[in-house]
């Protein structure tokens, strides 16, 4: 009887200059036969923090990641080395609790890269069926560790996802989802006159929500709204993104999106080696699936 499931994923990504980079996206094993309804996952993994972090970028509902996740967790998101323990309660409804300990090597929120100042995570997730057609998932997550400058960093997240799937339909007609993050981070600032270092606490908030409608098997349309503060600097940004997807089959998908972003300052962020206060982007993605028919998660 197998008692371990192992997973290894490699990622290949091209940059705008046409250079291809290969990386180890995930390499972990799951112990399947632990007692009391528990399971442990060990190795390098996308942390189960919030709604989207655990999902690889090509499987996410939109081409790009929501701004709040990029600002608070970086382009890669939370991908750490360590262990996660989950427990599914033996209740008539779904309730999953998760606790994790990681080395904390994230590019923005947690940067110590050591178990001595570990990143500790937790998540509670529940799910209810609303009749034969509706379903709702709710979750809350927390992550506590230290930044690369050995300053305290805490992230709390809340998530909700609702799907309406008419009887006999193979896909949802309507999907509504959103996630909010609250960051508490200590930073050291230098007084410009005395040059003395002083510790300050930054409390920042951000969220996104999207609605998707798929009246036909091959076509899907949606709209995402982003609003987020910057984790350290003052100020905020917002963005709106309508998008369209065409799926000729279950193994091939084309996505097109237009994204309009506005920030209250110009020098907060850069993309494509440039900075701007107002940014308009056109995004296109073609994705295909090789191998076995994949499972469709909620």
């Amino acid at each position, binding site marked *: 009887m197998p008692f371990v499931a192992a997973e290894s994923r490699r990622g290949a990504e091209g940059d705008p200059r046409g250079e291809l980079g290969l990386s180890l996206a995930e390499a972990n094993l*799951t112990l399947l036969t632990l007692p009391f*309804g528990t399971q442990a996952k060990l190795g390098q993994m996308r942390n189960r923090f919030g709604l989207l972090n655990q999902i690889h970028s090509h499987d996410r509902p939109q081409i790009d990641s929501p701004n709040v996740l990029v600002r608070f967790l970086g382009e890669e998101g939370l991908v750490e080395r360590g262990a996660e323990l989950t*427990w599914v309660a033996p*209740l008539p409804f779904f309730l999953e609790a998760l606790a994790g300990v990681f080395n904390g090597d994230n590019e923005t929120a947690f940067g110590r890269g050591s178990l001595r100042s570990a990143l500790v995570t937790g998540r509670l997730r*529940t799910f209810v069926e609303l009749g034969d057609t509706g379903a709702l998932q709710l979750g809350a997550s927390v992550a506590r560790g230290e930044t690369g400058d050995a300053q305290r960093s805490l992230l709390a997240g809340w998530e909700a996802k609702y799907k309406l799937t008419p009887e006999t339909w193979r896909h949802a007609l309507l999907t509504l989802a959103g996630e909010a993050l609250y960051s508490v981070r200590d930073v050291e600032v230098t007084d410009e006159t005395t040059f003395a270092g002083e510790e300050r606490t930054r409390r920042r908030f951000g969220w996104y929500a999207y609605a998707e409608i798929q009246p036909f*098997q091959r076509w899907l349309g949606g709209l995402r709204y982003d609003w987020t503060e910057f984790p350290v600097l003052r100020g905020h940004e917002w963005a709106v993104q309508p998008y369209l997807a065409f799926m000729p*089959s*279950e193994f091939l998908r084309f996505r097109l999106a237009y994204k309009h972003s506005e920030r209250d300052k110009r020098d907060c962020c850069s993309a494509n080696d440039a900075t701007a206060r107002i940014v308009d982007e056109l995004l296109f993605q073609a994705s295909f699936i090789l191998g076995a*028919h994949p*499972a469709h998660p909620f």
Partner: protein
Amino acid sequence: MRRLVALVIAAALGLGAAPAGAAPKIRVVTTIADLRALTEAVGGDLVTVDSLARGNQNPHDLEVRPSLMVKVRRADLLVVNGLELDAWAEVVVQGANNPRVIPGAPGRVDASRGVPVLEIPPGRVDRSMGDVHPSGNPHYTLDPALVAIAIANIEEGLARVTPEHRAVFERNRRAFLGRLEEAMARWSRTLGPARGAKVVVYHNNWVYFLARFGLVQAGTIEERPGIPPGPGHLTQLIRRMKDEGVRLVLVEPWNDRRLAERVAEDAGAKALVLASSVGTATGSYIEAIDAIVTALGRALR
């Protein structure tokens, strides 16, 4: 509030699952509704059975919901169809944290074990062939004769987790086979006059059923399994249907019914929506096949 907390604790401890004095029932989860009905036939009063996919859901690509994990979390036995029809079940099992039903565990049954599988691809399988099942066509539960093998596997699994009830399961299995034999004679009589009739199917689900009752599959609306058809394929199919005198197109509730009706109309045939699985929570396997045979017999008259 206190009452609610007490209820939650009682549920967590498994209290209230059986009346005082009564032996707790074996909790079985099946991936598809046909296997639920077959497990109920073998397990009788000793089991409670729940299916992950409802009869009106396409079992090929069921959405993996946490509510499915709740069912598997508490299961003593998990019965899968196998042959990659319900590969999504592995994701459910992994999220359910129940070591009793992981692959290879005593509480795991693959009902396809020993089934003479049709349409095993002879060579290499790749995505250009569509959603082909490398181990062969997985829709064997639509052949009433082959379910004898499936229920033998189910009986073996039930007896593995509760050996003390083996004799009861064996008695139930034999009784079910007796009822199935009687029904088989009835179904053969109903479909006898239609032997040799050609039908077109939307997806290649019906090959076992058609072969059993001497009907001929003249084509599929899907050009390749799971891939929507192109206009060239449909034009060719309609021409062939006219040439060969095909009078019926079988379509399942989750298929594109309008497309099937258009093809049928253009070819001078009619489309018949048939559920290829036990439909309701209480339906039996024999009732489901009864409904299919009656509808087909009427349509091919």
